[in-house]
């Protein structure tokens, strides 16, 4: 494995065997990246607007937490072909249940990629993104950073173009990740598993997730982002692009549990076509500082997106997420529920926006963010928002933040339950409305386990 630097020379090197258009794309992204300031160096830069967080206090806090960040300390690695290294067939992710396919990536290198032969025969494509660039070049050409996560995230409603330094970095240096392509009308009943891991110290991971579910198809992807140990510092600059075709049903679960020394930056964007259903679960437990922009674009009439978020922070973690529900077409519905628990001196921020475009009458949008703060020194900001340009819509939003309820604790303790266990019950109960809406029991179990670890 080759250690690289975030330099133009390194792009030339990793793009040497890539198609001309990709090389060009990388260099364009690099030019943009170079033109943008680092978020913590300027007071009022575009990045701030990108995350749509408007309070001064909040921004000061985030800048403070970003101060320890130095990009030059982290190294991207040039992905090599796993098969060439004889790595194919190495340990699949250990899951207790059936899997239709699995992919394991460590430090940008594909260590395992498998797909059931039945699905392969039916035309499903599932592979490390570098392999996909060779084998499915046209798909990448039309979908890779063209419509979902792009260098210029333009909001039609506000008519403003926003640049994100880390999206540009990702576009220039992306390494690894995967393409999942499900052909028209095919229903994949069993989930596919992906493990994106970081193991080496000072590793930069720039994985890219690209999911294309064609019309009428159905698929479930369970993706874990994790560090192999608790102490090495890492950097992730990722992107997730999801395309749910007409009448498709897509369930995408991402569980982020990097260690507490990992910087996490990502943009996630899903485009949902006519009558399609997207169920999107985002769970975040890890990271030193994390900033994720997550957007769903309800592009086709009658489509629906369910966004579920669950996070738990401790120590001095700082986790931000900024969500957007963009209703482009009429008769679309979206429902977002994010719940966060904070411990110790951790901080979180959620800024959520529902955008209803002028044509999107009969939109039904819902948005709710609730926070449970377990410690006096933890802090949370929550900023729900609406921007409605259509006339006939139903939009509801709300946000809450509160300390653990002393009456609840006393009630449980009066029944013999010790404080620590009472706290745990209340936390579990707080997450339950999110849990019960997650359609997969195995995911519920994994999340419960991670919650328990945080409470210990």
């Amino acid at each position, binding site marked *: 494995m080759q250690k690289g630097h975030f330099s133009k020379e390194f792009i030339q090197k990793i793009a040497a065997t890539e198609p001309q258009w990709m090389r060009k794309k990388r260099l364009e992204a690099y030019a943009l990246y170079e033109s943008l300031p680092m978020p913590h160096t300027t007071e009022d830069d575009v990045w701030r607007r990108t995350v749509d967080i408007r309070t001064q206090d909040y921004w000061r806090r985030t800048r403070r937490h970003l101060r320890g960040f130095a990009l030059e300390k982290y190294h991207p690695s040039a992905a090599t072909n796993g098969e060439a290294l004889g790595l194919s067939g190495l340990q699949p992710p250990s899951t207790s249940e059936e899997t239709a396919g699995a992919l394991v990536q460590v430090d940008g290198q594909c260590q395992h990629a498998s797909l059931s032969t039945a699905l392969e025969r039916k035309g499903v494509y599932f592979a490390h993104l570098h392999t996909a660039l060779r084998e499915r070049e046209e798909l990448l050409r039309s979908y890779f950073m063209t419509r979902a996560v792009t260098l210029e995230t333009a909001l039609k409603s506000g008519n403003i173009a926003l640049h994100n330094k880390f999206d540009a970095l990702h576009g220039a240096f992306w390494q690894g990740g995967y393409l999942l392509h499900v052909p028209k009308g095919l229903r994949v009943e069993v989930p596919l598993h992906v493990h994106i891991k970081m193991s080496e110290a000072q590793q930069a991971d720039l994985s890219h997730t690209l999911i294309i579910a064609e019309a009428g198809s159905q698929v479930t992807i369970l993706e874990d982002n994790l560090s192999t140990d608790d102490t090495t510092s890492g950097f992730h600059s990722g992107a997730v692009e999801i395309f749910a075709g007409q009448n498709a049903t897509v369930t995408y679960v991402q569980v982020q549990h990097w260690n507490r020394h990992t910087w996490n930056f990502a943009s996630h964007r899903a485009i949902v076509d006519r009558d399609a259903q997207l169920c999107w679960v985002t769970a975040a437990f890890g990271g030193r500082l994390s900033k994720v922009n997550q957007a769903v674009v309800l592009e086709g009439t009658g489509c629906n997106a369910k966004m579920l978020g669950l996070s738990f922070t401790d120590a001095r973690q700082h986790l931000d997420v900024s969500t957007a529900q963009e209703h482009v077409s009429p008769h679309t519905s979206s429902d977002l529920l994010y719940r966060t628990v904070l411990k110790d001196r951790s901080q979180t921020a959620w800024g959520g926006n529902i955008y209803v475009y002028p044509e999107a009458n009969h939109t039904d949008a819902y948005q709710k963010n609730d926070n449970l703060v377990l410690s006096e020194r933890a802090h949370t900001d929550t900023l729900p928002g609406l921007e409605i340009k259509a006339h006939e819509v139903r939009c509801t939003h709300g946000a809450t933040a509160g300390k653990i309820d002393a009456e609840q604790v*006393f009630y449980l*303790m*009066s029944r013999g339950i010790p404080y620590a266990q009472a706290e745990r019950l209340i936390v579990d109960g707080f997450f339950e409305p999110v849990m019960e809406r997650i359609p997969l029991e195995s995911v519920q179990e994994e999340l419960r386990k991670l919650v328990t670890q945080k409470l210990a």
Partner: protein
Amino acid sequence: MSNDLVIKDLHIKVQGKPIIKGLNLTVKQGEIHALMGPNGSGKSTLANGLMGHPFYDIDSGEVIFNGVDILELEANERAKLGLFLAFQYPTAIPGVSLANFLRLAVSAVRNQGTNGSDTNDLIPMREFRRELRDKMKQLGVDDSFARRYLNDGFSGGEKKRAEILQLAMLEPKIAILDETDSGLDIDAVRIVGESVSRLIGPELGVLIITHYPRLLDYIQPQFVHILLDGRIVESGGWELTQMLEAEGYDPIREKHGF
């Protein structure tokens, strides 16, 4: 007897204001006591103070239970010794099912000697389920109760029945019922009253705290006490409740100069 609850010269303050002002009372296992008093006499303060609610400051006095002064103990330790409080306003805990909560509570209370925080200490699921089903049947509680979130969206009557179900499951030595009849219609009072009377036996001492005598039609106390301004001013038998029913609290107030 070590299972007696002995309250000696108890003083409790709420936000600096004295509410219980020198209360003496002994409740023995197997006895039923009623503590009656008008609003503001200190009934709920006493109930919560005995259970260890952090909001209530114990000023002085002692409460001996199982041979120890429980005033230094956390609420969960008091529960483990066999003290139970049926709340006037049970707190809702969304997302926590009644069954899940009760299994933890029952395990914690029965595992004397362990700290109860280890999940290995939980009583076996099958055993617990069987017991819960039996008790729910006895109390005429619907099966769906167990799966519902604790007191969340429960009606007034359901909340009180959930309290009595917990009482039945935890098998305390002394139970305090704080205004268990409040907010209930006549039918609900009858159901709750009958449920409690079924649990009564030589192993259980009960302190019924109430404003109205109507719950006492179903659970006949051997001892009746009247609480006024933080002190017990009269103690007697059944005849006291009948007097209260006929004349209200005014004659007693006058007699004691309030």
